[in-house]
C-alpha cells in the first residue's frame, strides 16, 4: 500500500488507511418488538411476531401469515408534519434511526461542528427492497379510480427506494457521502459494507442498515408471486428453515438502523461500543444450471479474510435461513465446508419475525452485536425436525449461553446475491 500525497477527504478513494468501524448505536423495528431491548428480550424468550394478516381480509390469498409490527402508532414517534409525506416503511426507519442515534449518544448537528468532524463527515447508507409500497398502492389506486388530480404530491418521493436514506439525512442533518443499495435480502449487509467504506474514505459517523414494509394486499400479492412463501396457516410452523418440513418463508416488515463510527472518533467522544464490523464481502451466484458452485461460501471466506480471522475463531453464525429445502441445503453445505459438520453454533432468530427483505440482515447484525454483548446466542424457533443431512449445530428453542467474541452474519437475495459480515466484540482484537 502506498500513502497518498493529499490528505483524504470524505468520499475520496484515496484514503489507504483502514480505521476500524464500530457500532455504537442500535435501533430496531421488528414484528416481535419495537425498540432494541424490547425486541432482544422477546427474541431471547422465543416470542414470535408472526401471525395472520389483520389489516384486511386476506382469506383469498394462498399465504396469509405475516410478521407485522402491531401497535405501532407513528404519531407517537414522528412529527405530525412528516406523517402525510411518509409511507409506513419510512416511519419505521425514522423511529429506528432516532433510537440508534440516541442509543449512541450522538447528536449529528452538534458533532458536525466539532473538531475533526465537519459538514460532510456524517452520512447515511441504507437498503430497501420494496419502497414505500402501501403508499404507492393507495396513490396508484386513486389515479385509476379517481383521476390524476387526486394523486398526492408526496407520491413523487414517498415510494422510491431512496426515501429512507433521504428522510434520515434531512431529519438528522447528515450531509456526507450517503447511498441506497438494493440486493433483495442481501442488500442490508451491502449497505453496512458501503457505510464502512465511507468511513474509510473519511466519514466519521454513518447511519446504516435497512428497513422494508410491503404487507398491504398488493405487496403481499407481489411476495406471493415469488413462489417462495409458505402456505402454512400455523404461525409456529409456517417458516421452518433447516427443518424437514421447510416449505417457504413468511414475509415480515421492519429492520434495524445502526450507528457506525470510525473507531478513533468514537473513542474520542467516549462512546460505548457494541462491536466492530470487522469484515464484509459480497458475491453473486452463477445462473442455476451453469455447473459452477454458488457464491455463499465464498462470500463468507472473503469476509473472514477481510477481517483477518479464520473460521475457527467464529463463535456463532446467524444464518440466512431461506426456508426452502434447496436453499437450506445450499447454506448447510457452505457451513459444513467452512466449519465442518456441527462445527459452529448456527441460529436464525428471523424464525420469530419472518424474512424482512432489506431490513432482515441488519436486524441479524443487531442480534449478533447483542449476542456478543450478553454472551448468549438467541434461539431458532420451532425447528422440531432438523434435516439430519445438514449436520448443523442449530441453537434451537432456548438461548445458549457462553462467551462470544466473533459472529458471522450471512444473507442471500433472490437472483443470486450473497453477502457476509463478520462482527467482532469490542476489544476482542
Amino acid at each position, binding site marked *: 500500500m502506498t500513502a497518498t500525497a493529499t490528505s483524504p477527504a470524505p468520499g475520496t478513494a484515496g484514503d489507504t488507511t483502514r480505521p476500524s468501524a464500530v457500532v455504537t448505536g442500535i435501533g430496531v423495528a421488528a414484528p416481535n418488538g419495537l425498540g432494541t431491548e424490547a425486541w432482544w428480550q422477546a427474541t431471547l424468550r422465543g416470542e414470535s411476531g408472526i401471525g395472520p394478516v389483520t389489516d384486511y381480509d386476506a382469506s383469498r390469498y394462498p399465504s396469509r401469515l405475516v410478521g407485522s409490527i402491531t401497535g405501532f402508532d407513528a404519531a407517537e414517534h414522528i*412529527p405530525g408534519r412528516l406523517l*402525510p*409525506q411518509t409511507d409506513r416503511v419510512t416511519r419505521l426507519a425514522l423511529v429506528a434511526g432516532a433510537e440508534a442515534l440516541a442509543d449512541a449518544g450522538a447528536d449529528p448537528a452538534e458533532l458536525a461542528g466539532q473538531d475533526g468532524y465537519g459538514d460532510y463527515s456524517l452520512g447515511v447508507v441504507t437498503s430497501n427492497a420494496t419502497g414505500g409500497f402501501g403508499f404507492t398502492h393507495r396513490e396508484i389506486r386513486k389515479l385509476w379510480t379517481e383521476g390524476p*388530480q387526486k394523486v398526492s*404530491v408526496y407520491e413523487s418521493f414517498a415510494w422510491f427506494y431512496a426515501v429512507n436514506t433521504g428522510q434520515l439525512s434531512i431529519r438528522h442533518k447528515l450531509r456526507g457521502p450517503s447511498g441506497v443499495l438494493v440486493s433483495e435480502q442481501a442488500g442490508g449487509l451491502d449497505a453496512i459494507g458501503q457505510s464502512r467504506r465511507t468511513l474509510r474514505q473519511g466519514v466519521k459517523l454513518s447511519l446504516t442498515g435497512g428497513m422494508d414494509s410491503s404487507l398491504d394486499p398488493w405487496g403481499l400479492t407481489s411476495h406471493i408471486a415469488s413462489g417462495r412463501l409458505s402456505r402454512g396457516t400455523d404461525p409456529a410452523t409456517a417458516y421452518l428453515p433447516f427443518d424437514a418440513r421447510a416449505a417457504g418463508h413468511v414475509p415480515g416488515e421492519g429492520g434495524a438502523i445502526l450507528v457506525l463510527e470510525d473507531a478513533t472518533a468514537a473513542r474520542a467522544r467516549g462512546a460505548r461500543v457494541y462491536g466492530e464490523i470487522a469484515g464484509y464481502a459480497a458475491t453473486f451466484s452463477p445462473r442455476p444450471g451453469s455447473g459452477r458452485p454458488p457464491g455463499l461460501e465464498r462470500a463468507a471466506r472473503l469476509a473472514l479474510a477481510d477481517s483477518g480471522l479464520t473460521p475457527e475463531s467464529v463463535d456463532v453464525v446467524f444464518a440466512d435461513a431461506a426456508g426452502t429445502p434447496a436453499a437450506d441445503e445450499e447454506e448447510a453445505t457452505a457451513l459444513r465446508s467452512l466449519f465442518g459438520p456441527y462445527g459452529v453454533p448456527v441460529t436464525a432468530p428471523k424464525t420469530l419475525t419472518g424474512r424482512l427483505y432489506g431490513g432482515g440482515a441488519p436486524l441479524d447484525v443487531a442480534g449478533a452485536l447483542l449476542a456478543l454483548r450478553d454472551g448468549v446466542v438467541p434461539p431458532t424457533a420451532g425447528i422440531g425436525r432438523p434435516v439430519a443431512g445438514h449436520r448443523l449445530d442449530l441453537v434451537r428453542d432456548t438461548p445458549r449461553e457462553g462467551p462470544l467474541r466473533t459472529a458471522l452474519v450471512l444473507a442471500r437475495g433472490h437472483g443470486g446475491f450473497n453477502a457476509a459480515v463478520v462482527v467482532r466484540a469490542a476489544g476482542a482484537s
Partner: protein
Amino acid sequence: MAVITLHDLAGVLTECAGADEDVVLTSESLDVTFTDLGYDSLALLETAATVQQRYGVTLSDDEVSEITTPREFLDLVNQSAVQAA
C-alpha cells in the same frame, strides 16, 4: 359569501401537510407567510389541489405559486369562486 374560511383552510392544511402542535392557525396568522408557519411548497401544492377539488374552483399554476400567506390563499379561492359563479 366566502366559500372557504380560515377554519376550513386550517383543516385542509392539517390533512395535507400534517399537524404541528406549535403552529395553530388563527386570525393572527392570516398575514404570516406559509414558510414561517412551517409549510413548504409541496404542502401548498397539495393543499391547493385538495381545495380546488373540494370547493370546485380552478386555480392556475402561476396563481398557486404566488401565494405566500393564508390571506392570499383565501382571497384567491374566494375570488375564483365568485368568478366561476
